[in-house]
């Protein structure tokens, strides 16, 4: 049993597999006529979003509602959050409301850790700055398992702006915990200094995407932001796309069975071409759907269900 999900490091192998198994059962119920499960009736789940992310917010809301929880959403827009109330004061408010779980999305790394120190309910990291996004990693692992049958033994390339990517950090941790091999690929400017010494067993770094692709089961493309170019992390979008973008030519280097993932939102034409994004190998749409099941499973686990 874990109280919070702040980092993918909080999950050992058995707990992670337990979540994926529950998510599978949750997904099965989603196909039925009655989509609501009574599991969290009478419990309060708060979505505290300091960043605009309609996709993730809706996913968490849907997950909590399908478990019959009372759902309250605080968005950065139109609430006290935007009026400059401190996280501490907001935490005290949530505590007074009796929040059983809070899913927090925040631009500052570690904000969920701070929140966990101030409230008695569970805290679920829904993305904190450039740190982690553990439910994204869980849904990615879930997607790999449903497409390829297993996660253990897979070779996964995570490509692009690893330095600023919470998706990359959480996936690196979770996938290696689950026994996958992870290769982080990108220009050296976008890979953290000293990361090679901090990597878990089973992980490595490469600057050469073409060399990595032929041996991959999964390629996960990360969103690259335009402002990185202005900060001289790379010279131009065109050069980035040439060296690290996934287009049809590169996709052809992949083994037959390999899949292409992207956490979204995509920059079509930069890190991924439309032909690749819309191809049969792409799991982008499934990832969104799987997000709800995985978040249901996490809420279920944190709020006292048994795996």
């Amino acid at each position, binding site marked *: 049993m874990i109280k919070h999900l702040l980092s993918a490091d909080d999950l050992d192998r058995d707990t992670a597999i337990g979540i994926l198994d529950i998510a599978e059962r949750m997904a099965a119920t989603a196909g039925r006529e009655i989509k609501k499960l009574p599991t969290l009736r009478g419990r309060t789940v708060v979505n505290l979003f300091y960043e605009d992310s309609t996709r993730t917010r809706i996913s968490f809301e849907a997950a909590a509602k399908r478990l019959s929880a009372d759902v309250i959403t605080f968005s950065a827009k139109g609430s006290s959050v935007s009026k400059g109330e*401190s*996280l*501490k004061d907001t935490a005290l408010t949530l505590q007074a409301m009796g929040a059983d779980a809070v899913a927090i999305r*925040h*631009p*500052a*790394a*570690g*904000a969920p*850790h*701070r929140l966990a120190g101030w409230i008695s309910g569970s805290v679920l990291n829904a993305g*904190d*700055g*450039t*740190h*982690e996004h553990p439910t994204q990693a869980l849904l990615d692992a879930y997607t790999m398992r449903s497409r390829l049958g297993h996660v253990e033994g897979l070779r996964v390339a995570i490509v692009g702006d690893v330095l600023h990517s*919470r998706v990359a*950090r959480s996936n690196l941790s979770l996938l290696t915990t689950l026994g996958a091999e992870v290769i982080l690929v990108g220009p050296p400017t976008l890979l*953290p*200094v*000293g*990361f090679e*010494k*901090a990597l878990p067993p089973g992980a490595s770094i490469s600057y050469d995407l073409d060399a990595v692709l032929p041996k991959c089961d999964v390629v996960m493309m990360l969103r690259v932001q335009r402002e990185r170019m202005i900060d001289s992390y790379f010279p131009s979008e065109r050069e980035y796309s040439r060296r690290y973008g996934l287009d049809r030519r590169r996709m052809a280097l992949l083994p037959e069975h390999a899949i292409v993932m992207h956490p979204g939102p995509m920059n079509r034409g930069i890190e991924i071409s439309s032909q690749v994004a819309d191809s049969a190998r792409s799991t982008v749409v499934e990832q969104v759907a799987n997000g709800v099941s995985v978040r249901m499973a996490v809420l279920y686990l944190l709020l006292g269900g048994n795996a």
Partner: protein
Amino acid sequence: MTSTWLIRGARMPGGGPTDILIRDGVTVEVGTVLDSRGATVIDADGLIVLPGLVDLHTHLREPGREDAETVETGSRAAALGGYTAVCAMANTDPVADTAGVVEQVWRLGRDAGLVDVQPIGAVTVGLRGEQLAELGAMATSAARVRIFSDDGHCVADPRLMRRALEYVKAFDGVIAQHAEEPRLTVGAQMHEGEVSARLGLTGWPAVAEEAIIARDVLLAGHVDSRLHICHVSTAGSVEILRWAKSKGWRVTAEVTPHHLLLTEEYVTGYDPVFKVNPPLRTAADVAALRQALAEGVIDVVATDHAPHAVEDKECEWAYARPGMLGLQTALSVVVKTMVEPGLLDWDGVADRMSRIPARIAGLTDHGHDPAPGVPANLTLVDPTARVRVDPSQLASLSRNTPYAGMDLPCQVVATFLRGEPTVLDGKAVR
């Protein structure tokens, strides 16, 4: 008010027990079995007497942030920490960049009367790094400023730094540099390395400090000026300082207690009480800093006492202000990190925390062992005491100590400022 005090049986660093008779602000006799008539006697058996400690780097926050600290509360914290003089950094609001502001701070210190508050003047107007402040006016003001610093900011422009170094030679001034190449630390949150990679916090690379130190020791050598490096935090900086000193250049350096004790691993929980600039570094850096302080490559310990209001620390890491309290725990941390491991003896502590900083700051009344005719600025320390740090018990208005709950060695029992106690029985007299 005048009074007479007899300190009985205190041990001088490196010496045996001795008695010290203090009258009218000065030590009048040192020896054994002195005439105690008319004197208040302090039994100092088992205590060590140090020259009153001198801090080259204190943020007193007044004027401007009196909710975080005032000259008076900071002075009290200093006295309780064994200090008799502190140098107040210039990054107040308004900035201490004119004779008027430095005289105001100096007067506030004199009114509080708990330590000598020696203002530091800003190097540039508004700490903006564009134009020299009126350094000469501050030097000739009542505050007699000798140390100039834009601390909090680096004097990043090399030409401006050169001019500042040269200009202050006219009044034996020294530029205290906060060494941080600003283009290498945009958005920086913690030491850049394995831990920052894992935590997703923007890195503050060691090279941002080392590059400025390398540049500035070369400049100081070129124009033969005095340069002081604030809060040295990396092993690489130590190597550069060692080289600069071997050239005979007039370069001094300080290390903070927190950089002698704490490492970047404390950042892992994202509690901003551990956020400081320069950031906590690696265990290898800590070891190099201790060694450098032992060898004298780093000359002094300075606290960088940086009080912050609760709301500036009880928040997200990235939004928190950098800085830690230091005055009341500095001596204990130095004992823990330097004396207990055998890197420094008590005479070395007196050098690094009193005699040498007094000399760098030009504070002629401070940094002297008790001797007839010398101003009685002294500290009595119980070396066997152990104290658990309780933030709510600190004299500072702020609570941002990184040592909360830690057991630290030694305790300041009494502090004398010009012959009058500011601390007795470990408590401030007012």
